[in-house]
């Protein structure tokens, strides 16, 4: 997939193309099933997993409830430690702040730590427009960037590609960005990693400015935390002279003690590791060590609006582990691109329509991109009841109602395109409220049963394109019950 998410078709259309792509299906099936099994083992090792999950939920809920207080405390702590805090209400403001900060250093390139927040705001494209080149240094993000592709997974952005496809991207694209890949590069993982390592090493040693996100921000000390597997993050966070971190406001935790919970649940849920290989923590600036200047850009971009929703706000607990993607049967078949957002899978289906609103076709279709099987809720390390929020957002789509947009209370109107469904639901409710009418309908169906087709034309093909209709029985149960006195009369 190339291009941007703008103008994405609704989920069902986008997913249909993915379902029909056997290579993509194979790649996703293999990757998600492997990590699914590993996660289950890593989580199963801990006898107190349920308590950790509950603790994580409570810490996040407490912090969100007092977010105003903790954000001010964080700003004070970061400032006292030598950092500078900037507040960005939306993507445009955040991008302008980062571009200005980079320009003030006199540099025209930055190295990047893998970060969902900067993907969310389209920072790379915004910097490009200002003449600043941003180099992704996470292996998978590098693959996606070189291939002019889009991430399709939160943790493994290139999950939709296999080794051969990655080798092709490296061979054809690396040279245009810096050190080219060897001519005889094969698809062996060690060779691919070595090619990326040599390519990136030049960037690390040259860069004067780095841009990162953060997994956590500790309010009491102003410490930021990045957890990663490859060490590219550690390079970016320590070598450049200026570090700019763009972080969503929901990433704050009150104290260091709170990290104890998440530094156990996050790696086990995401990469199925007991502990991730690199945990980098920094507090402002330190003389003679690390960046000389540190800027923290606190990003709202729809989070305050989301926080205003009693049911939907639990999505802000998310620690971006991806366990829900890996276990989701819909994600496994539809792939990440179909979700039209940097946040794919079940969490994306509840996050995107809240951060961006349900105005666009893709955002209004995301709450329906689930069979409500509940596997996501079961694995979520902060107990986000994703099915509950999905249903809540479906209600917002079809019924409209009160919501908060850009800080203002608004009343959303029901989405268009649900008129037939709404009429069918109203008719069904009318029938179900009158057992006499229900029975009349059942009898009519039973008496005409020999005339029923096994497949339907028109919109009915959504069912009968792949499935026969069930045969209608000669009589509904309630007629049998009354005719035989509940079977006591012995007539079957």
């Amino acid at each position, binding site marked *: 997939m190339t291009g941007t998410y703008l103008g994405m078709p609704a989920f069902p259309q986008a997913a249909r193309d993915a379902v029909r792509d056997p290579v993509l299906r194979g790649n996703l099936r293999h990757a998600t099933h492997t990590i699914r099994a590993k996660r289950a083992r890593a989580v199963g090792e801990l006898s107190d997993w349920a308590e950790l999950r509950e603790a994580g939920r409570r810490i996040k809920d407490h912090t969100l409830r007092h977010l105003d207080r903790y954000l001010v405390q964080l700003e004070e702590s970061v400032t006292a430690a030598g950092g500078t805090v900037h507040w960005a209400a939306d993507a445009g403001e955040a991008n302008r702040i980062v571009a200005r900060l980079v320009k003030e250093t006199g540099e025209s390139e930055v190295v990047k730590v893998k970060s969902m927040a900067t993907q969310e705001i389209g920072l790379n494209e915004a910097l490009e427009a200002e003449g600043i080149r941003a180099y992704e240094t996470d292996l998978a993000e590098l693959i996606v960037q070189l291939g002019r592709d889009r991430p399709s997974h939160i943790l493994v952005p290139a999950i939709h590609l296999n080794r051969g496809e990655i080798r092709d991207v490296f061979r054809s694209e690396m040279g245009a960005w810096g050190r080219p890949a060897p001519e005889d590069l094969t698809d062996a993982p060690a060779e691919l990693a070595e090619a990326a390592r040599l390519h990136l090493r030049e960037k690390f040693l040259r860069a004067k400015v780095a841009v990162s996100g953060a997994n956590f921000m500790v309010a009491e000390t102003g410490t930021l935390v990045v957890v990663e597997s490859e060490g590219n993050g550690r390079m970016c966070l320590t070598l450049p002279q200026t570090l700019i971190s763009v972080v969503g406001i929901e990433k704050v935790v009150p104290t260091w003690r709170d990290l104890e919970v998440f530094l156990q649940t996050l790696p086990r849920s995401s990469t199925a590791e007991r502990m991730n290989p690199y945990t980098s923590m920094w507090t402002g600036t330190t003389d003679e060590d690390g960046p000389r200047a540190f800027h923290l850009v606190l990003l709202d971009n729809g989070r305050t609006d989301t926080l205003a929703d009693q049911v939907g706000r639990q999505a802000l607990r998310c620690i971006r582990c991806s366990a829900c993607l890996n276990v989701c049967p819909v994600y496994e078949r539809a792939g990440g691109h179909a979700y039209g957002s940097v946040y794919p899978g079940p969490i994306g289906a509840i996050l995107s329509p809240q951060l961006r609103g349900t105005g666009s076709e893709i955002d209004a279709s995301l709450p329906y991109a689930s069979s409500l099987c509940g596997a996501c809720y079961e694995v979520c390390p902060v107990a986000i009841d994703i099915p509950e929020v999905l249903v809540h957002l479906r209600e917002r789509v079809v019924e409209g109602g009160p919501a908060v947009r850009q800080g203002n209370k608004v009343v959303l109107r029901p989405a268009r395109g649900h008129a037939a469904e709404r009429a069918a639901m109203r008719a069904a409710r009318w029938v179900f409220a009158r057992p006499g009418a229900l029975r009349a309908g059942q009898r009519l169906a039973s008496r005409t049963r020999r005339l029923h087709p096994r497949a339907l034309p028109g919109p009915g093909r959504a069912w009968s394109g792949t499935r026969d209709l069930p045969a*209608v029985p000669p009589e509904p149960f*309630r007629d049998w019950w009354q005719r035989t006195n*509940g079977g006591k009369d012995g007539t079957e």
Partner: protein
Amino acid sequence: MRVALFLTCVNDTLYPDTGRAVVRLLTRLGVDIDFPTGQSCCGQAHYNTGYRHGAEPLARRLSEVFRDYEAIVTPSGSCGAMVREVYPRMGERARAEGRGDTLARTLAPVVAKTYELTEFLVDVLGVTDVGAWYSHTVTYHPTCHGLRGLGLGDRPRRLLEAVRGLELVELPGAEECCGFGGTFALKNPEVSAAMGADKLRNARSTGAEVLCAADNSCLMHLGGMMSRLRTGPRPVHIAEILASTEEEPAV
């Protein structure tokens, strides 16, 4: 004990055999079961599609029809989960909308005494051997709302294992969703069918003659696919297996 059968609208209309099987099974176990004819639908399709307010009158009706029974038994994990999990939530939401406690109070009486069939057998009646006989190879698909919503655990499996003549074979990927998901099957038909096709492939790989589940709606989706492809195994609700005896065998 006054026990009511909450059959569900889908079973009443399309799968009366399942209803008759529940009646036969519970009668054999000494339960006096009633079918209050005022019942219709729990409102799950409305609620899950986003029409919570449309589901409320159906939920109120269900509660009014069933409230005076001591236990309510339903052969559907999905509709059982609707009553037990979602009804309290509907009450809370009405309260949050400033509509007071009326809905919560109306729905409360049925929440705790609603049991999915296998729960009622194992937990309330305390039986796992229901005296059934069923001479077929069976594989069991635990449907999502029963598995993860109600937490049925190994109850269905224990009941099936005690059936004489029945050979139970393991379904690979058993806990993965079959792709039905109510209106999901219509709104995302391609993904739904892809999930169903994988479930069927796993079911066929067991060599079982019968694919058993405790929810006819999931079996309607899988059965519709199998009928279209003219392939097995045959979808059968667990109630029909448990009701089957040597004297009155189910086919």
